[in-house]
């Protein structure tokens, strides 16, 4: 399967270069991490890949297909899903309904069929709800299915957001600080779950502050500082890299 590649991508905001000539690859079935100090341009990278921002230079490819300049919803429809640093859910809707929204990419029925309620849309709805329940079971949160999402703890809301992104059945999942606000135990459980998803073939790009989490789970790690790539490799290699130690780990 194709990989998601950034080829010397840059993004300038006025005079500031948030991302400068960054090249990286997210491969299917591989847990890839992107780390760096605050303001290093990590979230900008996710926004560039998902099409919310257009690169000032360079190219973003999905296999042979050029994603540069595509509309965000087109990129999502091609199978690139993401979560956000701040949780964004439909607070008054149930957890299950929040997850089902993520199935949009797999809707086959027409606007007309949906407007007048042809049987096909109820079949679709049932299958989407079944998939959402399966996700809930996998995350061991089945009992929360009918709870309004706004009433959940912050950590649980993050999980709902991840499940919604997974309801897209994406080929690539970009996670923007998924374990922020979780304790060590919750974070580890999520990590194990994400790893099992990667084993099934998803290409995962994890953006994280939590060093221990990244070092434990990511197979390839990219380290950025001021929008530039300063190191890449396995957790071991990166944590021994002198530039990384200076820029990020301190001392």
């Amino acid at each position, binding site marked *: 399967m194709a990989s998601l590649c950034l080829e010397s991508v840059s993004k300038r905001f006025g005079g500031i270069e948030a991302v400068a000539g960054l090249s990286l690859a997210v491969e299917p079935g591989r847990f890839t991490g992107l780390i760096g100090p605050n303001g290093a341009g990590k979230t900008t990278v996710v926004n560039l890949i998902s099409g919310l921002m257009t690169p000032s230079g360079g190219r973003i490819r999905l296999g042979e297909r050029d994603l540069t300049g595509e509309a965000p*919803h087109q990129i999502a429809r091609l199978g690139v*899903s993401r979560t956000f640093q701040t949780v964004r*859910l439909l607070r008054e809707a149930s957890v299950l309904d929040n997850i089902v*929204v993520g*199935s*949009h990419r797999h809707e086959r029925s027409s606007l007309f069929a949906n407007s007048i309620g042809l049987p096909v*849309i109820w079949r679709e*709805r049932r299958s989407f709800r079944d998939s959402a329940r399966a996700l809930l079971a996998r995350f061991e949160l089945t009992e929360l299915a009918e709870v*309004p999402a706004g*009433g959940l703890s912050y950590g649980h809301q993050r999980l709902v957001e991840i499940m919604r992104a997974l309801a897209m059945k994406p080929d690539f999942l970009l996670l923007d600080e998924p374990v922020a606000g979780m304790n060590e135990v919750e974070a580890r459980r999520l990590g194990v779950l994400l790893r099992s998803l990667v084993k099934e073939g998803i290409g995962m790009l994890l953006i994280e502050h939590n060093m221990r989490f990244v070092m434990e789970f990511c197979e390839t790690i990219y380290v950025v500082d001021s929008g530039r790539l300063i190191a890449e490799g396995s957790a071991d290699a990166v944590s021994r890299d002198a530039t990384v130690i200076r820029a990020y780990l301190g001392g």
Partner: protein
Amino acid sequence: MVEFVLTYRPLFDLICVYTILAFSQYAALRAGLFSLATPGFASIGGYAGAIVLKETHLGPILGALAAALCGVAAGLFLSLPLARLRGAFQSIATIGFVQIMVSLTLYAQPITGGALGFNAIPKVATTGPLVLVVIAIAALLAVINRSGIGRAFDAIRQDYTVARSLGISVSRYFRYAFALSGAIGALGGCLLAYNTYSIQPDVFGFPMLVSVIAAVILGGRSMVAGPIVGTVFLIVLPELIRPLADERLLLQGLLLIVVIIYLPQGIVDSLVHRWKLRRASTVARAEQGERAHGVPLP
């Protein structure tokens, strides 16, 4: 009972017509579309329906259908520039559309009768047909809410960015919402014309805009019952407190302020939301209780 119904029949008809107009406003807000174009659509539908009924032999049903189609066309036309705008910009542009419709119908005297209005329209929309239309639209909206379109609307309303990141084309669904709001609004305007013998340009002006938006905010923006409850409240309450009937606008304003403070999601949505939260916490507590007693969960 019969006497009661007869006495309050005009009021009931009015509630039906305004519920339909509120549905038009609701269809827009439900999609996260800040359109206030409903009175403009109603104006198009009102005059189109009245003209078809009086000047042709097509009859009221085809007249109403023609009105709704004109509403769809107007909605799609508006969506060309407006589906790309967001939030307050949509509101301002659609208020402009309402003003333009008031002026157009005022100046197009040979067709619309100008300020004197379009008069002597046969009263074909009696209580029966009105109730049927309200039920039909409510059913249609309920289906749409539960369909993929409703899910897309939910996502857009909560956050444009999230919707796009899930593969939803925001402008496509805005176009749809404009067309839907246009069709319902025009149908409402047409039935207003078919019910009240006469329409004038300023019927479809700012006061109507305020009433329909107030009905939806008061009743609730997410469930279909919202606009119905809101409209009933706005029309019946001043009648119940007769001495205050003259201060209808004042009362509406006060009611809105109170509801926005205490039930910010509207009467229906707030109550349902509270009920769901309570049920969820009862379930959770029951499960915790079972766990504490060592009983395995089903």
